[in-house]
């Protein structure tokens, strides 16, 4: 193959038969565009949340409902999962055996589940306090923004599970690598969104 060398972080796609030259770069590029679109969705959800912050209309407000402890633990879990995904990417690039990749992906998946568990527990506590979205504009905005992120994490977890299955079936072929790279972008993106949620929703709510 004398085509242009395909260079991508975490990918060894050169000399590939399966992908047409350039298909890998296009695949990643398209996913970046998707993430931009998704980022706008979250930006708008944050904006709505900002405008609805004062609309508590007698229902429980941020200071009554938000607990710094669980939110901080969730942050630690999700940031760690980004680290473990990074290690999975490095394993994909350098490790010829698949074991370490599978191990790091599995740890990431477990951390994702742990995060979701804590988050669901938060929601359960709020609902048992009667802090439900039908009571105020503020709670509506909260229950749109934070679960939207949670749904993304759920999708990310499902995606990791699918990729683990694909590694078992196909090994590390080019499409598996490409999808792992895209999944990595997605996972780190969710981390960035969560940092916004932790700062704007939880820290501002508790301290502000």
């Amino acid at each position, binding site marked *: 193959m004398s085509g242009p060398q395909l260079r991508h972080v975490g990918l060894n796609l050169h000399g590939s038969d*399966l992908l*047409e030259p*350039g298909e890998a*770069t*296009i695949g990643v*590029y*398209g996913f970046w*565009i*998707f993430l*931009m*679109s*998704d980022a*706008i*969705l979250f930006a*708008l*959800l944050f904006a*709505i949340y900002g*405008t*609805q912050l004062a*609309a*508590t*209309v007698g*229902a429980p407000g941020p200071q009554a409902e938000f607990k710094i402890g669980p939110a901080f633990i969730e942050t630690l879990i999700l940031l760690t999962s980004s680290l473990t995904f990074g290690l999975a990417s490095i394993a994909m690039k350098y490790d010829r055996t698949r074991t370490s990749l599978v191990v790091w992906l599995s740890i990431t998946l477990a951390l994702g589940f742990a995060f979701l568990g804590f988050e669901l527990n938060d929601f359960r506590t709020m609902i048992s306090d009667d802090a439900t*979205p*039908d*009571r*105020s*504009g*503020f709670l*509506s*905005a909260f*229950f*749109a923004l934070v679960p939207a992120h949670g749904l993304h994490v759920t999708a990310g977890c499902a995606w990791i599970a*699918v990729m683990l*299955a*694909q590694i078992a*079936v*196909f090994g590390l*072929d080019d*499409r598996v690598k490409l*999808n792992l790279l895209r999944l990595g972008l997605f996972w780190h993106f969710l981390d960035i969104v969560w940092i916004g949620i932790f700062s704007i929703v939880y820290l501002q709510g508790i301290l502000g």
Partner: protein
Amino acid sequence: MSGDVWFWLFGRLDAKALPFVRAWDHPTLSEFIGAMAGGMVVVGAVVLVALLTWQRWWRPLFLDWLTSLDHKKIGIMYVVIAGVMLTRALIEAVLMRTQQSLAVDAPGIVAPEHFAQLFSTHGTIMVFFMAMPFLTGLINFAMPLQIGARDVAFPLLNSISLMLTAAGAGLVMISLAIGDFSTGGWSGYPPYTGKAFQPGVGPDYWIWAITLTSLGTTFSGLNFAATIYKKRCPGMHLMRMPLFCWTALCTSILMVFAMPPLTLATALLALDRYADFHFFTNDLGGNMMNYVNLFWLFGHPEVYILILPAFGVYSEVISAFSSKELYGYTSLVLATMAIGILSFTVWLHHFFTMGQSADVNAAFGIATMTIGVPTGVKVYDWIWTMFRGEVRFTTPMLFSIAFIVTFVLGGFSGILLAVPPIDFVVHNTVFLVAHFHNVIIPGTLYGVIAGYMYWFPKAFGFRLVEGWGKVSFACWVVGFYLAFMPLYVLGLGGMPRRSQALFEPDYRPWLIVAVLGAFILLAGLVTLFVQLAVSVREREKNRVPVGDPWDARSLEWSVSAPPPEYNFATIPHVGRRDVFYWRKAAHGAYKPADHYRDITVPRNSWVGPIVGLGGAACGFGLVWHIWWMTILGFAAVWITVIGRSFVRDTHRVISAAEVEATDRAWLAQVSGAHPIPRQLEESPKNFGLAESFPAPVPA
């Protein structure tokens, strides 16, 4: 007990949902009209099924078309959707005009609720299911050919986009026969579309139809942008692309950034309606201004999503039929991108009267007027392109010229509306209706029709007959002026928009002129279909297999008509703008390749149709609260998508020998064809090979 089973199976569906039953219970003219419309959908569906069965077209329909990942076929299917939806929405427009012309101090023929559904579906369809699919179809068809690519960046995603749009259009059509549609206008402002005021299924149909198509459009935008950035052929620098590709790029960027606000607006409205959230309600901290801002954050860029591709079509058409290179290419590119950016800075002018301070209004008014500047640049560029060109008045060219004149008028009324004090006076009157039809009809509809006629011979290998085209053109232009100029007068006279009945006798003469215009517009559509039918019947006379009937300039004309599945036997190399034109001038066109290679193309896939069907089922279930159907549809979508990621055999190879044989057969046709001069391009002698002229000496 049996009620529980019924609800479990059919949700809130009951016999009253059928317009036929409603017409039986309340035999009024309005209900009969509704039942007739529903009947037309049912009869249309039955006739279609019968025809497909009778002609044994089911297999080709699915195997050659619906499962195809070929960007050209997907483009054509988009245009078919647009044609069907245009027919419905135009009939609705005629019905509304008829109602208003009869309803001066009289009840007319359509009840208020029914009238409100008419203007809601008319607007929703024209924007989301006519204009958007039409232009997406044209981009799909022409853009990859123009940049020398074999397909779009993500062919399967392209098919999914198409099917999601089709699913949305399907929901709107189903609403005619089962249930009713929203009465909240195409913009669906809450709280009126909230549960408190419209507990029925109408707004839900609107929400899910829009959600499906806005997801499809986001994916289309992503796909086109990635295609234009990454799939251009060697040498096709950005500044060498045909202008249509620039406008397609700008529209794609707008789609990526402007569709999420719409998706979010409809999603939050759905949360309000389904789960008792309080985003836009009147009580408990809801704030409908959030909806208005979200909607127009999408809605204004949307205007340019609609108009820019048409600008691209005009640039291609005017250049080709003036036999000249596009004047001021760079300024057109800059103007396009400037419009793209400015389009995000003006959304507030859609609600000047909704409580901002005068300073805020002034800022947005000025920003709005600023958009007139790049648009003006474009108009002058097109005029200069025609200047001293050898202009041929084919139908697409006539549409382009009518566009320039009519669109400038619409732009003027837009500048008036951009002045907040004037907007306060005429807002919510038919002056506004006149204005936006005056920009969108020439700015989008004329453009997509011109594009359809311009690229039709490329897509199907034969030209459309010119005679019927010109009749249709005359109807569209005369009809437009008669239908909408009176609305300016009526609007200044204070006639509110969306009125089912009127109480001012002085309006009547103007309304009668307007309904006359609406019927002439309908004649424009009918003649368009007649033109298509006649052209298909006389196709042998108008064949242009060589593929260049208009002596045009860009790469899509350098291949056979219709083009092979893989577009180009060998990927072209480009050294300048208008490369095909200069190749012809230098006698470098129509040459066989040095050697041919195997070509890999994507296999057909059922994923798109299944995702579309699943999406439609999910939406229909949500509308009627048939939860098993919702879950089933949703699961079908995701199981299919995940299942597909396990399929590795997604491509097939067309052998070099086959490519070479096809190419040489076509080249033999080329050398057997007689080149015709431009003056004879409308005659049957036109075989698609243009007489080439020696390269002119640069001035």
